[in-house]
């Protein structure tokens, strides 16, 4: 098997698995940059997957092939609203942000399965009729060499995810809004003195994390799993959290990390077909993202520092 054939096998698979993780990790960047820890990404993603699937199932007869795309938008909205719980608890009620995130994960898992049983009378949904399919990008996929590697058998959502990362980078680093968001995460009191509404910025950060994680979850459900069960989202949200940290709370870094983790995951699946990887037990490839994240945090792979004010509720006038 030639190296190009191997790349044409691995890279499309990596882009395919990375898309939902990129979106969710970008959500994490918004929340944590504003100073609110978001362990609840997993639950927000799960809620997005749930909404995405039931929306598609409901509208697919009338809307047809466009239904998964509509469903992604509905999921974004639904998870955005759902994330308000985390915002209210951790910003207004000054709950421990990690604990509130854990509660979000519990609640999303319980609520979605409860509703699935209520609506469909069984523990899982049917498969959706219209998925977000892998496509060969017209024109580009015919290019020699790179056409096969970067533009074939990849869903459009992967390209949108990469584009989204660039947009988020621009928003966070090049706009006044981004500066305000980062400032309330680094030094809320200074930001407050400058007239920035800390509470409002943090609410926006958390809600955006819900919106992005919802999109990520819906993409996962509608492009990879195709239905919703209790086990559809199991760890992808935490993988996104890992990507965000491995990417040092930077949108492009998070995207890079998510692509790398997608790569590692696709290796663990496609590895059996590749000569020199066949002999490596797949467990090493599966745990690689988690181990690498720990190493990144300890400084072996470049130091990763969290926003300064992360996890601390802001109380006006308190030093």
């Amino acid at each position, binding site marked *: 098997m030639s190296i190009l054939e191997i790349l044409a096998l691995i890279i499309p698979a990596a882009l395919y698995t990375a898309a939902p993780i990129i979106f969710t990790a970008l959500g994490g960047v918004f929340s944590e940059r504003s100073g609110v820890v978001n362990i609840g990404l997993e639950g927000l993603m799960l809620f997005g997957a749930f909404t995405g699937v039931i929306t598609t199932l409901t509208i697919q007869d009338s809307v047809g092939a466009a239904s998964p795309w509509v469903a992604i938008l509905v999921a974004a909205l639904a998870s955005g609203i759902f994330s308000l719980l985390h915002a209210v608890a951790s910003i207004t009620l000054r*709950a421990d942000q990690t604990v509130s995130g854990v*509660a979000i*994960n*519990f609640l999303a898992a319980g609520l979605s399965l409860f509703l699935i049983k209520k609506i469909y009378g069984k523990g899982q949904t049917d498969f959706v009729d219209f998925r977000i399919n892998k496509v060969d990008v017209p024109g580009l996929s015919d290019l020699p060499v790179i056409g096969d590697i970067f533009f074939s058998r990849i869903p459009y959502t992967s390209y949108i995810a990469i584009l989204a990362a660039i947009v988020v980078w621009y928003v966070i680093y090049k706009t006044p809004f981004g500066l305000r968001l980062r400032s309330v995460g680094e030094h809320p009191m200074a930001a407050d003195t400058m007239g920035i509404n800390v509470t409002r910025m943090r609410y926006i950060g958390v809600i955006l994390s819900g919106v992005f994680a919802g999109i990520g979850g819906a993409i996962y459900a509608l492009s990879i799993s195709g239905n919703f069960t209790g086990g559809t989202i*199991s760890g992808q949200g935490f993988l996104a959290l890992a990507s965000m940290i491995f990417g040092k709370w930077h949108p492009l870094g998070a995207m890079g990390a998510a692509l790398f983790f997608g790569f590692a995951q696709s290796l663990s699946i496609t590895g059996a077909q590749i000569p020199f990887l066949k002999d490596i037990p797949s467990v090493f490839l*599966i745990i690689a993202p988690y181990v690498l994240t*720990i190493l990144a945090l300890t400084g072996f792979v470049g130091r990763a520092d969290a926003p300064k004010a992360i996890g601390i509720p802001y109380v006006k006038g308190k030093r």
Partner: protein
Amino acid sequence: MQNLLKNERLFNILVPVISAILGMLAGAIIMVLGNYDPVAGFEALFSGMFGTPKAIGETIRAASPLILSGLAVGFAFKTGLFNIGVEGQLLVGWLASVWVGYAFELPAVLHVTLSILAAAVAGGLWGMIPGYLKAKFKVHEVIVTIMLNYVALYVTADLIKRYLYAGNEKSYRIHESASLSSPFLSQITEGSRLHWGIMIALIAAVIMWFILEKTATGYELKSVGYNQHASMYAGMNVSKNVILSMTISGAFAGMAGAMEGLGTFQNMTVLSSFTGTGFDGIAVALLGANNAFGIILSSLLFGGLNTAAPQMNFDANVPSELIKIIIALIIFFVASGYIIRVIAARFSKEGK
């Protein structure tokens, strides 16, 4: 001042109690909204928790690992650390207990003890990693423990498949001499799977209370958790205490795994997702106000709710996931205790 202290203690009891009641109420409201009969639902729930001797036995059985995982979370909390990795430490402990229980042949009492110790050591070592990384590299323990949960999940599954595989996604069974199960306990509860693990969990609760409240080490641990800088200034070794705290916490979590391995299941399954016991431990510790006695009570509540969920589904047709929702809401309420305090404080002021 005296009054304030009294109030503080009162709030510490009041907040969990109010939260639990609010959680149940919310559950009832969800039942009504979902067109289920809340009376029948709660009737089934309560009878599934403690309606028959068997139900009581099962509730206590489910509470045993919960107590230990709650102690693990609570111990870390008390010393200023958040051990969200109880789930992973539990899995590692579970595997260690099953391995010792299967691979050795020893006299009964010795074998059980060794198997439990193996679980505690394995869980302790797994908990020590984030402690060490926190002490040495200032890495936040929450992230490391989450990552280690996944490492534990996949590595234990792989190890079972490789070395202990008995087929059908299960490991070999442990020897009778390493088992915690008890025909006597099963008989008096009319056929439940109740085992001696509850005694170990209760002893562990006493140990936690003793370490934290009655020893100098415990005082240091709490002091470091409360204010690192002051403790360092007072001559305490902060790094050592952080590592020690995570290790002890991990040991409790590992023993929770032994409850499953030596008690309830007698083997280990190749898991593809988490057991949830480790995460429930967070809810247990929060509701129990990180207090050993409180943790026992809240474990009984959550253990009961979890075991009664199928019966609620069977009798009243309410999906068993309702329990998860109730537990999640209770966590929210306890975590947002600030608001309960504010309201209660306002009431007590008006009363004066």
